[in-house]
């Protein structure tokens, strides 16, 4: 197992190399100039050229690549072109924190309600509850996130001033104070994920509840609660954890629309802004961050498989 983990972690190196080189060249080839973005729409070509020179952006791409890659191998991802020369790692870290907090809350809500409702629907198959849960989860998958977010703001912030309409406070401002701002965006994110997890759980549970060993457990006199939530659910978790892992990785990439509606300074908005302003060092840093997140989360999911199902060995 240890060897397996080491191999998976070492595999990060070639992945980061390929991704890094590819992104470095592609963003410099697309049109757009960071100097022009810094100076604004009323700058002349001479102004842009002068600033480009100062920023070193007039040098050839291979020279810029040599300089960048020699720093990256030492862990120095350079400084942002737009955020006052702040180190890229610091800029991404500042945006990572809100994304992590929001994602964590969203995934907790989605996992809890998704699994509970999925099991409940399966156990009460074909009942009114099952049908109701199916309708709600269908709506959850169909409703666009931006519409849901705006509706939540309308009802809970504008019509009835229960929760703030937008903004973000870090955990350092207090747990309740911080989560007050995250409830609506977390629900917006969680609704679709809950629906997906619920349906996946229900479908797998129905399969498992029809197996011989479940029939045997019932025949032995084991209570329905233990049959459903211990024996059956454990076998469903493998596929559900895959969904949760994918959802977590996806959300850690930043939920741009939700972050925009609720004005949360997360990684999604940072990426969009960096691309629009051609902040090359930050774009490169974020893409590498995505690669790391995906690789690590996939590894975590694989390790969880082993924990849940002792039959799996690497």
């Amino acid at each position, binding site marked *: 197992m240890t060897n397996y983990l080491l191999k998976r972690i070492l595999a990060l190196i070639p992945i980061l190399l390929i991704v890094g080189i590819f992104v470095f060249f592609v963003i410099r080839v697309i049109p757009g100039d960071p100097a022009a973005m810094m100076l604004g729409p009323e700058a*002349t070509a001479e102004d842009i050229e002068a600033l480009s020179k*100062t920023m070193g952006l007039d040098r050839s791409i291979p020279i810029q690549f040599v300089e960048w890659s020699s720093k990256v191998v030492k862990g120095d991802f350079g400084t942002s072109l737009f955020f006052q020369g702040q180190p890229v790692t610091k800029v991404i870290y*500042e945006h990572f924190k809100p994304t992590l907090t929001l994602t964590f809350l969203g995934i907790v809500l989605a996992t809890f309600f998704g699994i509970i409702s999925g099991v409940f629907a399966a156990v009460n198959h074909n009942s009114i509850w099952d049908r109701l849960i199916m309708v709600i989860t269908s709506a959850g998958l169909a409703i666009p996130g931006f519409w849901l977010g705006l509706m939540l703001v309308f009802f809970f912030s*504008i019509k009835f001033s229960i929760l703030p*309409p*937008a903004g973000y406070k870090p955990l350092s401002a207090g747990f309740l104070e911080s989560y007050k701002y995250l409830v609506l965006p977390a629900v917006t994110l969680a609704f679709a994920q809950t629906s997906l997890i619920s349906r996946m759980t229900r479908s797998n549970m129905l399969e498992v509840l029809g197996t011989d060993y479940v029939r045997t457990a019932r025949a032995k006199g084991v209570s329905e609660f233990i049959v459903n939530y211990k024996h059956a659910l454990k076998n469903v978790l493998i596929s559900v954890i895959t969904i949760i892992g994918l959802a977590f990785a996806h959300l850690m990439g930043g939920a741009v629309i939700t972050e925009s509606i609720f004005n949360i300074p997360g990684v999604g908005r940072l990426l969009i802004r960096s691309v629009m302003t051609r902040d090359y060092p930050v774009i490169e840093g974020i893409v590498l961050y995505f690669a790391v997140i995906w690789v690590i989360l996939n590894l975590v999911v694989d390790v969880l498989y082993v924990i849940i199902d002792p039959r799996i060995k690497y």
Partner: protein
Amino acid sequence: MKNKLFLGLVLTLSIMMLVVNSYAAEPKMGGVLKVVVETDPSTLDTHASSTTLNAIIAYHIFEGLYTLDKNLKVIPMLAADLPEISDDKLVYTIKIRPGVKFQNGKEVTAEDVVASLKRWGKMSGNGRNLFKYVASIEAKDPLTLELKLTESTAITLVSLARHSGGAYIYPKDLCEKYPDKPLEEFIGTGPFKFVEWKPQQYIKVVRFDEYKPVDFPANGFGGKKVAYVDEIQFIPVLDQSTRLNAVEGGEYDFSDFIAGDEYSRLKDNPSLQALPSALRASFVFFFNKRAGIMKDVKMREAVLTALDMAPMLIVDKGDEKFWGINPGLVLKESIWWSDIGKEMYNQGDIEKAKMLLQESGYKGEKIVWMVSAESDMTLVAKKQLEKAGFNIDLQTMEFATMSERRNNPELWDVFTTGMTWQADPSMLTILTPGYPGWWESPKFIDLLDKFNTELDFDKRYKVMEEIQELFYTEIPAIKVGDYGNFRIAAKNVHGFQNLNEPFFWNVWKD
């Protein structure tokens, strides 16, 4: 007895109401003002960038020698008074107000001013524009500097007074620490001092307790400035509906750039102040005069003749409070305004446009028209022009791509953009020869040179009229119309002066 009691009660209540009412009208110190801005600024160093947003935040922290009053006339700020100008108009002697401190506690001296202006003259496009005429600038004594010109120019004071790309004064050691890159530390003389900048979260400034105001009343962007609130947070919110929700929901106190079509819903909202601004910018279609089909003035005239401006402005700005028809190159309130050329403007004459197209020998070639994603009015222009027989290839792209492509005359024929008001007409992009579109005709260059070097206002005004007449003859671009912003504020925000650009000194909260 009962009557006396009753009278006493009425008197007491009246006095209480008077006190309460006068208390509400009096400015109050304290509180945090949360101001929404449409995005993070690229920098707070106006020597490094001329965007309006950068200047709007920067002028709370920094000040220049001069600024603009409500009529956009130059008034002193850090300077003690308007300068002494030599008879030959080449030497400007400027005295600085004594006892003004930077936010690091040091007093402002002429050395700081000279270092800042030299840096601005090197880094800033606006600075380079003035410094073309500057022979030397030096400190004569700790509170006096002398600016010598190579030839007289009308743009000296107005260049030093403008905000976007402004000649703000920094400590000399900061200018030496960042000689050619944007500042990473922000120390000025303004009523608020910089505290921190969390990208995409906020820029925080707090009251500068040792701020020294000028001794005349508030006037436009100058005069006496008082930091009533303890702190201002400038919070970037990219999405328009989020800006609106956040102020309506009570989370933030002020926002600019709200969609004009929300005005009818919000104007009677009891929890908000609906604040349409004065018209402050113009939409312009720039023609490529270096290459391609729009080099032909007949083609440009055909486009101008076909266009009906009102539908374009309505689709972009909504309520008529937020747009205006105006043939002048400057805003109507400007001392430079005239309506010369109005017969050419806003004709909406499709049949005449068709004739002009025929005369130019147009055979239906594609006309490449670039627009950034934010503006729909070009779609309306396209529809109108297609009726006249134009073949428009409308290319919508994000701003970064357009800003690169428009520097290459082989790639486009027309592009749409906004043009913000300026302190002097010579600073407008529509009158900048080097700006994409490249109005570089000998007649225009000659008139522009006269405009920049003539000092007498009446004579300058006549030259401006000639420039505008030439504009409607050579048609280097199309002035579509003017537009303003829709701003909203919480009910408990007072003292806001709804000028071309917002500012928050002299503003308080209940």
